[in-house]
């Protein structure tokens, strides 16, 4: 019923508009096309000026309404995020000035130089000096932007500090899985053909000793330590995903077959963010930013940023994937032998994994 009404109203509105439009064409013919044209010309010239003024008010109003909904520039929750915020600010100022000047000139000229009997158009085909000036000025402005941009870019994409902690993030339709390297601080090798939904979701190679203590986490937030650089090693199992961390202003694609990395230092704990945003339920979110199939929009993960002590308490409760998959080898289940001998029980997966 509602749809019917909407369609009916649209049709009616259309009909009325069309009749008016046709009538005005006839009237124009009767009154003299030239006179009618001059009148509409005045109306449109005036409307262009109105559009400029309302438009500028609109830009201001829009900013008032919406600026509060985004994490304010300068309050990004990571060190790299602050650089990005600064770059954004510089860019907004420079482009804002250009935007204002050019739009004002455009609509003002249209209004001012609308057709009039009193004026003759000024024959002005070119002027080298002007043209050089407005080639050089944008070039300088852009050099400034490129300069800052590239300095920040290299800082952000440069090598992670040696003491950075490492977390592996793996995307797949439509979830995130994390792996912590454990005490040896080394992520064990993996090979996708070792994948097994039940006991080896990441395809770890069990004969790599570095894998023994790697902790697998999924279905709960990733935990990070505040003020400690972290390097994310990012991959995907099926299609391309993207680890988007809007509060940290960071982002990196997760590409099957080609691991990528990204590092940053979270600077605010989740608790601090709750206070700062006045939202007791605040969470850091991981969004998938690369179209990855029908669940793309719901591919959500969470991050908790906490102190080292809190992190240690959380980590202490975790068991490595190796011992979860092979509980009989877990020293805490058996009295002896303390360390599983890799030749004692060869996991099935290893037989296939030649590499």
């Amino acid at each position, binding site marked *: 019923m509602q749809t019917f009404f909407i369609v009916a109203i649209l049709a009616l509105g259309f009909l009325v508009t069309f009749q008016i439009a046709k009538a005005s064409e006839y009237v124009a013919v009767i009154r003299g096309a030239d006179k009618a044209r001059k009148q509409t010309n005045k109306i449109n010239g005036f409307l262009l000026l109105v559009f400029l003024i309302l438009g500028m008010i*609109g830009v201001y109003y829009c900013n008032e309404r919406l600026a509060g909904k985004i994490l304010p520039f300068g309050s990004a929750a990571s060190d790299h995020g602050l650089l990005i915020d600064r770059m954004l600010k510089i860019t907004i100022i420079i482009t804002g000035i250009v935007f204002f000047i*050019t739009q004002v000139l455009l609509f003002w000229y249209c209004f001012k130089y609308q057709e009039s009997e009193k004026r003759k158009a000024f024959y002005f085909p070119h002027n080298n000096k002007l043209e050089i000036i407005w080639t050089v000025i944008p070039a300088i402005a*852009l050099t400034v932007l490129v300069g800052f*941009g*590239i300095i920040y870019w290299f800082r952000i994409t440069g090598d992670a500090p040696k003491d950075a902690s490492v977390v592996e993030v793996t995307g797949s339709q439509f979830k995130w899985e994390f792996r912590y390297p454990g005490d040896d601080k080394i992520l064990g090798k993996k090979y996708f053909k070792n994948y097994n939904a039940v006991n080896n979701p990441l395809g770890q190679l069990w004969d790599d000793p570095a894998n023994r203590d790697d902790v697998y986490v999924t279905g709960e937030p990733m935990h990070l330590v505040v003020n400690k650089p972290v390097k994310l090693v990012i991959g995907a199992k099926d299609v391309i995903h993207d680890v988007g961390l809007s509060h940290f202003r960071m982002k990196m694609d997760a*590409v099957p077959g080609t691991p*990528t990395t990204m590092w940053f230092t979270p600077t605010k704990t989740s608790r601090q963010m709750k206070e700062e945003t006045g939202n007791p339920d605040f969470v850091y979110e991981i969004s998938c930013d690369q*179209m990855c199939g029908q669940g793309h929009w719901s591919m959500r993960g969470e991050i908790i940023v906490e102190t080292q002590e809190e992190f240690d308490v959380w980590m202490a409760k975790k068991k490595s994937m190796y011992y979860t998959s092979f509980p009989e080898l877990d020293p805490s289940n058996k009295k002896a032998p303390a360390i599983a001998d890799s030749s004692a029980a060869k996991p099935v997966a290893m037989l296939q994994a030649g590499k």
Partner: protein
Amino acid sequence: MSEALHVHSGVEVGHDVHHDDHHGHHHQSFISKYVFSMDHKTIGKQFLITGIVWAIIGGLFSVLFRLQLGFPGQSFPILETFFGHWAKGGTIHPEFYYALVTMHGTVLVFFVLTAGLSGTFANILIPLQIGARDMASPFLNMLSYWFFFMASIVMLSSLFIQTGPASGGWTMYPPLSALHDASLGSKAGADMWLISMALFIVSSLLGGLNYISTILNMRTKGMSMTRLPLPIWAMFFTAVLGVLSFPVLLSGAILLLFDRNLGTSFYLSDIVVAGNILPNEGGSAILFQHLFWFLGHPEVYIILLPAMGMVSEILSVNSRKPIFGYMAMLGSLFAIAILAFLVWAHHMFVTGLNPFLGSVFVLLTLLIAVPSAIKVFNWLTTLWRGNIRFTPATLFAIGFVSLFISGGLTGIFLGNSTIDIHLHDTMFVVAHFHIVMGVASFFGMFAGVYHWYPKMFGRYLNSTLGYIHFWVTICGAYLIFWPMHYEGLAGMPRRYLDKSIWQAFNQFADLDKMITIVSIVVFAVQLMFVFNFFYSIFKGRKVTSTNPWGANTLEWTTPINPGHGNWTGEIPEVHRWPYDYGKDGREFIPQTEPISASESKH
């Protein structure tokens, strides 16, 4: 003389003879005149009308997915009536949503703004403005349209297959688009998408080669390259861009077809999909992105340049003033065409691209803003101290400049890799390219249609409807896309059909509602334009003079309804550049008028 369509006369392509005012054709059947026509004007109209049909379809898709975005979860029973299991219970199924988004992008970028825009105006304007009877090869020109038509048929059929059309986004990144199990749209729909694109590429190569050779070889006497009107220069660079970059997309598409159907591993490696371990190793998913964007970035300029050219012409004619800085306009077109090939990786800053390479692409990308800025300043100066007539075409041209400024400036955010880390694949990108490419090019296209409609059909469009069309569309475009930047600044990813589960992104519900409502209004007004278009072909006010806008270029020296061959007598000779408006106190001096001894120099 306009009633004389069916009267015999002797004008054939290449013949300069003519008998009287009557011109038409010997024994032309309906089929050879309107269907398999080799007349560039008819082919242009075919491109335009097919483009309009596609624009309605593609626009309707966007209204549908905007309904989902503005009113997530709400049921619209009418959707189930039309789309069955794709919209069970009246809500849009996610697969359906992504299919709509993908088809919207593909259709508008390729079928409407490439074929419908440059196909139309290259065909109509090139021979008319350079003074040629037709294209270098009218036959290939006809084939170009029919390949486009076939591409359209294949794409259209893909909408009706069981598993639906392609749904991996208009960029069709593998592995998503390569793996049958990754999504419904990656089954038969993706193959049809690729086949359709291959046909489309053939069409645009045939068209492009024809445009280039026509412009280079078939100019009338006196029409040196620097006397060409700017739309022709723009079409020329457009064609060059297309000819050099479309083959790369073709190769990318063919490799993807192989990966999909023949078990090759160009783009595939280390994949476990839907629980199955695939055998592929050693491919690179990123390779496709390089191939895609090597076309994809020039493609956005393929869409924009013709609009720029027409806007330059229309602004000059209607401000009764020469275009300011003709040579600078040419130079900047040239610079844009070159740079367009050197910036593609700015779409890939966060794919794991080598940071040094990234910084080179930042430099080249921001460099392209310089010629863009030059063009804007030149348009502004063209308006300065003019005597501007606000025809609907002029208004759309002015709107184009405004949108190009807005969207070009947001390009400077995205071209800076540092900022792009935050903004990549967010709604900010969507806002950027809709303003600068989508809406701006549409404005250029509308300007062209309003301006050259009298040449195409011998009648005027209703200008009151034209004014309404302009004002609603420009207000709507800014209302829709300006606030969208804020969603992007908040980090909201693109292609999210429901944001309610996201704490960071669910605060824009009101905004999304507003955008949806405005886009429905804007869509309705476009339908009004379409109505105006078809109505005026038959019932519009008739054109009574050959040169209704008082313009200098050659198309206005042809009869009101030119037959095949365009000029009834000899093709006129050209003596000057096309922009002598307001010179020596004369309102306009057509290109055909010899330079007089007393004339001032410029």
